[in-house]
């Protein structure tokens, strides 16, 4: 095919990208840039600051937990036979297929004062604990939500490493743990970066799960944004929050890519 024909095919997606993605974004963010002092004022407010730091903290914890749980899981999956792997991969996707509200209420029934965990504690005569409407509840819900994203992004990366490469490391005297650290981890780092950014961006902008499990006491940026639009109709304030969330995600992406370049020298050397 000629280059011009390729270009014709690209016109429609380009219009969609500009019209449906860039224009609304610019349209809603631009007014906030005209009053930069409002950004300063946002961070001067202690209530806002608390919510901002909580969002960053909980999203980072969620990302780290997803990496810690997802990395070994996807490695283990890649070692299984094709048939088992497919079955388990589709089971892992299950949380993403259920409705966010249903998922949230499912966790409420587990974590609430009279929930399964506290009932069990009562049964063995232990004091009950406050689980719902805490940071921990938000993290648990977010990890549950984003672990499938992590595993499904990493699985093809793990499969690409190739069984012979892993076997080669074994024959050279590397114990299974060492193979994981010295071969699997460096070779899946670029995938880990993408998955990590996806989980972070997802959990900092998630609304339903943090709102249901964190309640009004433990607000996140997304809940604050919702409050600004629906309760206060302060559209500029909402746009500012959205922009702050965007900057956070981009910042984390930049951070991850710096780390990734240091660890994975494969691409850098390949001039």
């Amino acid at each position, binding site marked *: 095919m000629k280059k011009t024909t390729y270009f014709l095919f690209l016109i429609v997606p380009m219009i969609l990208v500009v019209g449906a993605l860039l224009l609304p974004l610019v349209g809603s963010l631009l007014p906030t840039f005209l009053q930069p002092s409002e950004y300063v004022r946002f961070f001067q407010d202690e209530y806002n600051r608390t919510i901002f730091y909580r969002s960053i903290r909980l999203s980072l914890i969620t990302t780290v937990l997803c990496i810690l749980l997802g990395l070994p899981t996807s490695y283990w999956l890649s070692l299984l036979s094709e048939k088992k792997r497919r079955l388990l991969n589709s089971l892992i996707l299950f949380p993403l297929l259920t409705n966010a509200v249903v998922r949230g209420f499912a966790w409420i029934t587990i974590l609430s004062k009279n929930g399964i965990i506290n009932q069990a504690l009562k049964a063995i005569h232990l004091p009950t604990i406050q689980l719902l409407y805490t940071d921990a509840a938000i993290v648990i819900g977010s990890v549950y939500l984003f672990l499938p994203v992590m595993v499904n992004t990493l699985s093809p990366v793990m499969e690409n490493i*190739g069984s012979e*490469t892993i*076997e080669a490391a074994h024959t*050279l*005297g590397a114990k299974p743990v060492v193979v994981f650290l010295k071969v699997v981890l460096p070779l899946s780092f670029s995938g880990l970066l993408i998955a990590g950014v996806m989980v972070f961006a997802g959990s900092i902008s998630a609304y339903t799960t943090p709102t249901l499990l964190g309640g009004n006491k433990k607000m996140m940026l997304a809940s604050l944004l919702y409050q600004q639009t629906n309760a206060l109709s302060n559209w500029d304030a909402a746009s500012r929050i959205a922009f702050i969330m965007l900057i956070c995600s981009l910042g984390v992406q930049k951070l991850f890519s710096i780390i990734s370049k240091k660890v994975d020298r*494969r691409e850098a050397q*390949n001039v």
Partner: protein
Amino acid sequence: MSFGELKGICVSYDNKNMILENLDLEIHKGELLSLLGPSGCGKTTTLRVIEGLMGTVGGTFILDGKDMTHVPVHDRGFGVVFQSYALFPHLSVRDNIAFGLKMRKEKNKELINEKVEKMAALTEITPYLDRFPKQLSGGQRQRVALARALVIEPKLLLLDEPLSNLDAQLRIQMRTTIKRIQQELGITTIFVTHDQEECFSVSDRVAIMDKGKIVQCDTPEAIYHKPANEMIARFVGFKNFYSADVYKDLGGTNGGSTLCCSRPSDFTINAANGIDGTIEVRTYLGSSYQYEVNTKHGFFTVVATEEKVYNIGDEIKLSISEDKTVIIGE
């Protein structure tokens, strides 16, 4: 006692269908032993059992007086060259070769460097030490894989179809390199291949496998001149198979009830006795011609020199001398 021995090795995925069945194999010190056979014959499985990458359901593997059957892969210390080379893409050639030494908890950096450079010189990859696997050609990657396997000074060097990803010219060059290095280091080597020519050219001994069993294990010369069964005979270039009665017609004497076979180039054309036949197909092989000759006993494939060229339709007489015929199952 021999250096290494596989005894009664059984491998099965489901305990019903045996992939290897009571396989016995002796490994002599310092030899290059080949496992040869068609795909699916179990040669790679045998190698994986030796490597420790494949579990067995029975049998033992003894090496140098030590039972290796249940020793895990990473403690066996064998050098393995994989079919895909399996180099670590995130490490430079130098670090790839040094990987095995570092895994052995070798802390002395100078010693590591010295060993890596010595091995690089031996495999002729010194100029590429600071490159990455992606920046190397197939032949260069092969040499790196070989250096990486050899630098740990393994008791056994195991090669799984190491030449199958190279083009024809490079294959011949690489097999000479492998043979040279193997002789220089005197390292016991097991080589898996499905290419008969490649295998016979470098091996000290060849184990021919079929359906999960070793059907003949001997020197290449012995197998070439005295194949143990029809499958092996076909593998080493015998094209004509016939009964003892036909053998008598061709000028032979004994044979009994056995199967006889001969190579296309071993026939004598138009001697005093023999079988009458008509030439039906003629193909030019470079320095000789190959004829398909139709006789009352079926087709024979015959190769003759350019001295006397026959045409399609020519009536000829085929005979064979006794020393040129191999009697199978004698």
